[in-house]
């Protein structure tokens, strides 16, 4: 049975796992629960591998595989099928999601071993896998939206996993609602695409979009394509935590650490990048949209990195780092090097998942402590964690030959070579400097220097192998994962980009980077040199501040007090949103809409009419006085009125013929 014809089996397995654990797992011991969960994910990973094998061994492996399973929604001219598809982009996403997902499942069996709600956790985690796989396998926007919303739901459930804690419940809710704001844009984008192309199937939309002769321009000059892309991108900024909708991701760290690694680093948050890359044919037709994507990505990368400089919670640093790295991916898409963006998505999935899992291992070792000010000197005590985390740090900082080095270089190269991209390049480079700094700051604060915790209270211990195993595998991937692009560095073929070429050929051809490939090639080495130097600089500064002069950071913080507190308080964006949007909205709803419009206005009017009727009745009642003579007067008045009507009627009706009278 070729899996390629039964692609549905890949997402269905985790769904089954989720249902079984969710419905029955409550009474089961841990090992049965995690066998079900791991079995489902592992089988799904195996199926994905087999499907990919079949896909690449197809004689015509350039072509996209499309399978229709059943009609999901149909009304009038609109149909959305449960259609799955597989192309090169899907292959990358599929392997990242199932592979990294499987590793994180293994890790979770160790990490969550002592937590309550074990079955609930794995049920949610499997459910997440289901929706994420639907998202990457979907062959139309509506089905993609199923995954899109579904992962948001799982994110909500998992962030709020410790629902007794108010901050966790708040964070989950915030994540869902902020994502919904993005989804609002995404939905409108779909509506517009349907209006323009009459379908939401990827194949149809992209075919028609690529055809220059299509002529449906309801917005004239501005262009359907631009509006549609910006609306889709609005969804992407929500899901992938970009400006201005990034605020939920740092708060999402309230969830258990494996969740942060899987959902808020490796997979779900990259969905926005995936959508932009998937819709690249639309984006490349709109210069405005591309510029917006690049600028938003670049700005977010820098903005989040600055906040990351001063955070003291180990997971918060990683969260802002994720926001920042996602910005890089959007920058790549915006400057037209989509394959570089996806490449960075993949390498980022390796090293950021590793960073989070290692951070989880640190937290585990410290008995729940997350504040780096209360750590220090851990490198000797938790060696495996230290070394694996160091590999990931080198990868994200762009140390030569590590995974992040290649992908980040490709992005910066893309930004440098595109027309007018120099400022983007400069900011990207500056961000790389900041990245190296805050990552080594994290390493030094956590693992080096003085021990800043009380050994009597904290019993530091290395994590079990169920947690270390995934760390080691991810460390290997963080080191070698970028080597796919290694030959290209010396002028050879770029395997990764070539593999994705059938998907992106339409889009990247138009990018400036490809036009001057030769020039780009000669630039590659010098630019890489600059990047390495920048990373070294970031490392050196961190080394100097946190190893050589441990008192210095505090002094600096004091001397630039205002800037420091602004950064520490994340530019007060949360407070701003609360003051400008949430509070006025609640005030308006309570004080104006509910109390004035509803209760006083409409109900007041209705009750007023009721009271009026009562008092009118009261007044008229007095005519029924029981006095015969007053009745006689009424009779006379009535008779006069009737006579008047009878005699005056002809004149009146002649002047105005009565409409609507039946013959």
């Amino acid at each position, binding site marked *: 049975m070729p899996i390629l014809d039964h692609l549905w089996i890949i997402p269905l397995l985790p769904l089954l796992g989720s249902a079984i654990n969710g419905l029955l797992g409550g009474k089961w011991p841990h090992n049965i629960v995690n066998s079900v969960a791991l079995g489902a994910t592992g089988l799904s990973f195996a199926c994905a591998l087999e499907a990919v094998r079949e896909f690449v061994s197809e004689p015509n492996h350039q072509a996209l595989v499309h399978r229709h399973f059943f009609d*999901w929604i149909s009304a*009038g001219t609109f149909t959305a099928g449960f259609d799955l598809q597989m192309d090169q982009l899907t292959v990358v996403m599929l392997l990242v999601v199932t592979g990294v997902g499987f590793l994180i499942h293994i890790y979770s069996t160790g990490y969550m071993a002592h937590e309550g709600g074990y079955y609930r956790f794995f049920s949610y985690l499997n459910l997440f896998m289901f929706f994420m796989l639907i998202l990457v396998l979907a062959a139309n926007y509506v089905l993609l939206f199923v995954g899109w919303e*579904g992962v948001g739901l799982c994110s909500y459930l998992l962030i709020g996993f410790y629902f007794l804690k108010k901050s966790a419940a708040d964070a989950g809710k915030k994540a869902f609602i902020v994502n919904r704001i993005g989804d609002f844009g995404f939905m409108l984008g779909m*509506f517009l695409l349907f209006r323009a192309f009459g379908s939401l199937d990827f194949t149809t939309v992209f075919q028609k979009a690529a055809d220059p002769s299509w002529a449906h321009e309801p917005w004239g000059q501005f262009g359907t394509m631009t509006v549609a892309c910006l609306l889709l991108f609005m969804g992407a900024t929500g899901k992938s935590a970009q400006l201005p909708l990034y605020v939920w991701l740092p708060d999402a760290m309230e969830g258990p650490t494996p969740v942060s690694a899987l959902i808020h680093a490796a997979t779900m948050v990259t969905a926005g990048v995936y959508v932009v890359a998937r819709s690249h044919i639309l984006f490349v037709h709109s210069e405005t949209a591309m510029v917006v994507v690049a600028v938003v990505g670049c700005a977010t990368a820098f903005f989040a990195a600055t906040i990351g400089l001063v955070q003291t919670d180990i997971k918060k640093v990683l969260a802002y780092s994720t926001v920042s790295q996602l910005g890089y991916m959007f920058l790549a898409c915006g400057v037209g090097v989509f394959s570089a963006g996806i490449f960075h998505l993949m390498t980022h999935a390796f090293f950021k998942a590793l960073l989070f899992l290692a951070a989880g291992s640190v937290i585990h070792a410290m008995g729940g402590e997350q504040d780096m000010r209360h750590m220090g000197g851990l490198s000797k005590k938790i060696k495996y964690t230290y070394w694996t985390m160091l590999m990931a740090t080198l990868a994200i900082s762009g140390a030569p030959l590590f995974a992040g080095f290649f992908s980040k270089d490709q992005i910066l190269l893309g930004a440098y070579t595109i027309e007018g991209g120099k400022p983007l390049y400069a900011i990207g480079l500056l961000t790389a400097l900041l990245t190296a700094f805050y990552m080594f700051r994290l390493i030094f604060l956590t693992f080096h220097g003085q021990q800043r915790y009380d050994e009597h209270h904290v019993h530091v211990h290395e994590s079990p192998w169920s947690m270390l195993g995934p760390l080691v595998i991810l460390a290997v991937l963080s080191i070698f994962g970028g080597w796919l692009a290694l030959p290209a560095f010396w002028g050879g073929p770029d395997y990764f980009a070539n593999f994705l070429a059938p998907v992106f050929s339409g889009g990247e051809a138009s990018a400036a980077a490809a036009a001057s490939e030769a020039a780009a090639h000669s630039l590659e080495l010098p630019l890489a040199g600059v990047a390495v130097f920048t990373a070294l600089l970031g490392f050196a500064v961190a080394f100097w501040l946190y190893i050589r002069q441990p008192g210095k950071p505090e002094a600096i913080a004091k001397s630039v007090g205002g800037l420091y507190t602004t950064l520490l308080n994340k530019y007060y964006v949360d407070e701003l949103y609360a003051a400008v949007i949430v509070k006025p909205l*609640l005030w308006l709803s309570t004080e104006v809409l509910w109390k004035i419009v509803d209760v006083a206005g409409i109900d007041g009017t209705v009750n007023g009419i009721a009271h009026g009727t009562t008092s009118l009745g009261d007044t008229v009642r007095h005519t029924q006085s029981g006095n015969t003579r007053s009745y006689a007067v009424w009779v006379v008045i009535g008779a006069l009125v009737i006579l008047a009507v009878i005699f005056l009627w002809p004149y009146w009706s002649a002047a105005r013929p009565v409409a609507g009278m039946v013959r």
Partner: protein
Amino acid sequence: MQTIPMLTILIFLPAAGVMGLLCLRKDDHEWIRRFAFVVSLLELIASVWFLLAGVPLGSNGYKLEEFHQWISLGPHLDAPQTWINYHLGVDGISMFLVILTAFLTVVSILCSWKSIDKRVKEFFIMILLLEVGVVGVFLSLDLFLFFLFWEVMLIPMYFLIGIWGHDRRIYATIKFVLYTMSGSILMLIGILWLYNATGTFDLPSIQLALQHGGLVLPRSTETLLFLAFFVAFAIKVPLFPFHTWLPDAHVEAPTAGSVILAGVLLKMGTYGMIRFCLPLFPDAAKRFATPIAVLAIIGIIYGALVALVQPNLKKLVAYSSVSHLGFVVLGIFAFQTVSMQGAVFQMLAHGISTGGLFLLVGMLYDRRHTFEMSQFGGLCAPMPQLAAFFLFVALSSMGLPMLNGFVGEFLILLGTYQVHWNWASWAATGVILSACYLLWSYQKVFYGDITVEKNRTLPDISTRERAILVTMAVITLWMGIGSTFFTDRTASASQAVIDQMQRPQHAEEAIVPAPAKPSRPAPGRPANATGSAIAPIASAAPRPNSLERLGTR
């Protein structure tokens, strides 16, 4: 004509059940409940069986029609004899509404099992009578009959809220009845006017006459008639600003009353718009589409915002209905096949999900005798199952894909967007707001620490409650994933409404004043000498007492 009068059985089976209940002893509560339950279950089985078989996939027009002359009205216009007819029929739209009614009646009987302990016999009699009225409304094809059932439905509802309701029940029930009555008076005038002009109460005949030019309405008359019907339905929906009866009625009604009120009674309003306002007065409907859509959008946003700040959980759900029904009205008045399909679907989905929400709120009330959210908090710990179901239903209500709420909302917005992108964009903000009010309330009720000591020992759902909730959850999933089962069956009826709105325009351009024949649409309206008077249709209209037209459709 089939030999078994299936639709009559569907309407009067609950009435027969009432007769049976009357024979039972007053204090024999257990048997009263069981009997009512069996009757409602039989009704459900019968409705599914009869209707799914009776309305074949892809069929057009009304099926399972029953036609009998009922009350003689003497000569009118050219006809020697006119009648109020007992005319029933079902199409793809009313079919599911009847099934929904039957289903929610079963649910409301089950959910009242324990919570109703005074005047038990009367309670179940009222529930079954209510079912008679509602099913009758959905199946009537005679305007008079429709009106009759429309009013019949009011009486049991009046008592349900007034007797078994909560503290302010008298205020709420009078408000409910007066609001509805003021609308129905207008509708009654409209119905009488139509009879006066056509000599029949028969909906298909009037529709045919209007469509084929047998009856031509001047613009102002059409407007007035449209408004008379529309206001009656808008109050029922309820459309902003006619909605203020709803929160009171819901909060005071017993759970069963709320479930049926939200689940099906509100749908009578939107059903009326689809069945009467659009096909009978298409031009007026088009003229008023923009203001109505604006009211619907205000309702969507306004209902959601007010729901957001309610401290009372049941009121919150009530206001959310205002918001959701706004989507339905918007979908109807966008005049698109896609959005019409979405509206019909949303009517069904809302019945299940909001019915479910009221059910869950009622379960909380049974345990704590309050709706105030400040009295709850942290309920996840003592009642994990109820919390899980609540979340599930809330998610379906906020339109999570793969659950039932999504399909309707999506189709409505998608269809509306194709012609009015700005309407759809405004309405789509409701998607954000629904997540806000549902998640906020969910957090207040179920997350966090337990603040009220009494809540610590609340029992989780019972087997009976679980049975209801599981059934609703299964239907929710089924509607969300297998939506085509429903949309395929409502497709031709929805399309028919859109088609019926296509009417020959510009009376002046009509060359041949051909009398309308039922079998062949006239090319245009007959030219009219005075321009203001209405052409009598008695000669052109099909004889109300002949069923020839049935063969032609």
